[in-house]
């Protein structure tokens, strides 16, 4: 293919642009709860996000990237003309990027995931026909968009209730917080590590048995829990703050735990959302390089690295500003609540990443926050805004699809 280099260049450029946009905008949503509850400063959040977004993208981003690369379009329909797939994927990337840019300027709550899936489905239906779309897969993905906020909400409800029963309603909440904090750390780390090791690491080239994976995950959880316990014991009791608010020190314990869930959130976001930028890139590159469609090689790791790099770049250039704005506005989310929500959301997203489901980080987090709200944890939640956020994905899909179709024909014209 004579246009191979141009396609490679365009795909890389569009993918980086998209990853940059996700880093600049979406990461703020993932990190906002940490900053809003005072668990992290903006500077620390940036460092945490950069490290763990990158880690999540590279270590656990493979499954979702595979889904977007070749799970939605049935490649047998483009065997004769691989260029169609290349143009389509480029158009989808561009459409999702442009739509996100437009929507974010207007302050609309849109999901990166929903727009990229909408775009790919849109181009596939128009360019290749309705039967070229893997509808079973698409329906599964859409079902996961309903399931993920629900699952996060239920987990958050359970986690927050456990914090209430074990700690907050007791006469000695601080002693109990110190006792149970390492347990919560252990559970969080072990679960996320387990899912990552079981599902994600094959893309890095590690093959482990189930027993090995469990041992490593539990061991990792235990080590972090011991370190965490040491830090928890070092939290001083602030008598002055306690007089004003009896749970001041308990909340400080959970602020520490939130550092861990914030890392998990960044990791989870990186593992799921990196695919939105580089899934199409991976598709374009594998076709453009080999000229063949549909070979089953794993996603090359350098593409995941590229995506991770793009995320961090966006975070570094615009993330600071956005994170500060978002975090500053969340005032009534205390660390016990933030911890419950983030733990639930991070676990759900990592689980989705492991099973290759592209879910919306924001929707999952909103679901988790609602779960805490249902457990009577949050003083006031704007149900109107929640409704708008959930309705937005219905709008996002046709918008992404329409734009993708336009760009697809433009590319077809340009490359004859």
């Amino acid at each position, binding site marked *: 293919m004579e246009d191979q280099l141009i396609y490679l260049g365009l795909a890389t450029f569009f993918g980086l642009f998209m990853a940059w946009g996700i880093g*600049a*905008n*979406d990461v*703020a*949503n993932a990190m*906002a*709860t940490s900053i*809003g509850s005072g668990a992290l400063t903006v500077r620390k959040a940036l460092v945490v996000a950069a490290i763990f977004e990158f880690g999540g993208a590279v270590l656990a981003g493979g499954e979702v990237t595979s889904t977007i690369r070749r799970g939605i379009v049935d490649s047998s329909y483009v065997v004769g003309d691989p260029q169609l797939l290349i143009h389509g994927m480029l158009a989808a990337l561009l459409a999702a990027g442009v739509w*996100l840019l437009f*929507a*974010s300027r207007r*302050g*609309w*709550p*849109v999901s990166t995931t929903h727009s990229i899936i909408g775009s790919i489905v849109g181009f596939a239906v128009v360019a290749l026909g309705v039967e070229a779309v893997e509808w079973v897969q698409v329906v599964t993905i859409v079902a996961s968009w309903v399931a993920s906020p629900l699952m996060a909400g239920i987990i958050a409800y359970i986690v927050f209730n456990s914090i*209430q029963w074990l700690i*907050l*309603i*007791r*006469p000695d*909440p601080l002693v109990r917080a110190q006792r149970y904090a390492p347990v919560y750390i252990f559970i969080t780390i072990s679960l996320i590590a387990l899912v990552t090791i079981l599902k994600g690491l094959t893309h890095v080239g590690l093959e482990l048995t189930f027993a090995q994976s469990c041992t490593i995950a539990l061991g990792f959880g235990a080590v972090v829990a011991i370190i965490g316990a040491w830090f928890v014991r070092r939290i001083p009791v602030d008598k002055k703050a306690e007089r004003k*608010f*009896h*749970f001041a020190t308990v909340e400080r314990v959970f602020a520490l735990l939130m550092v861990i869930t914030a890392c998990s959130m960044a990791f989870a976001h990186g593992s799921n959302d990196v695919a939105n930028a580089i899934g199409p890139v991976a598709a374009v590159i594998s076709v453009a390089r080999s000229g063949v469609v549909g070979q089953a090689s794993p996603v090359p790791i350098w593409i995941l690295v590229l995506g991770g790099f793009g995320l961090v770049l966006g975070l570094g250039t615009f993330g600071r500003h*956005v*994170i500060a*704005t*978002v*975090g*500053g*506005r*969340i*005032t*009534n*989310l*205390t660390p*016990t609540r933030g911890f419950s929500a983030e733990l639930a959301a991070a676990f759900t997203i990592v689980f989705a990443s492991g099973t290759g489901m592209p879910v919306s980080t*924001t929707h999952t*987090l*909103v679901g988790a*926050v*609602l779960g805490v*709200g*249902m*457990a*009577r*944890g*949050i*003083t*006031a*939640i*704007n*149900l*109107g*805004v*929640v409704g*708008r*956020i959930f309705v937005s994905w219905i709008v996002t899909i046709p918008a992404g699809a329409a734009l993708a179709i336009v760009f697809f024909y433009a590319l077809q014209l340009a490359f004859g």
Partner: protein
Amino acid sequence: MGNYISRIFGASPVRPLQDHMQTCYLCAKELVAFFGHVAKADWDQAQSSRERIVELEQEADDMKRQIRGQLPKSLLMPVPRQDLLELLLVQDRIANLARDVSGLVLGRRMSIPPPIQQEFLAFVSRNVDAAKKARKSIRELDELYESGFRGAEAELVESLVNELDEIEDETDVMQARIRAQIFAIEADLPPVDVIFLYRVLELTGHVGDMAERVGRRLELLLSH
């Protein structure tokens, strides 16, 4: 688009409710100074005391309106919105009563008959004590939200409300005693003054009643 997740968190009504209670308490507290000046027939001082009361009452009114405005129906809250609004209303009544009673006394340049003066001043400050205890209970509101209105914190509030009830019972006893004293001397006083004296006694006693109702409302929040 980064900022919409923050918009799902509505403004918390807890601090504003606590601030409102504080203002209402300060308003009621000024009654002690006010009646002190009235007892000495120092009308200039009573006048400035009354102005402070009016000022605080207006402040409380503004706060009340603002809190109402930030509690739209679409909020998901741990306690029913209606219960919070009613708590707010009861708190506000304390300030209203302070305004009404001071206005009445100052407007008519009423004097407290010397035989009941001491007991009456004690009655005023006991009512203000009730308001103070109500404020103390409301100060636990943030802790109640934190612990989900259950457990040790709920018990603490329960005991505060009980103390509040005891103070209110005391004011009832005092009120009955003062009423009897007024009755004993009422034949020697101008009849119109007597009527208003009973009225002032009653209004002042309502301060304690309202403080008790703040406690009742708080208990209602616990029972959800």
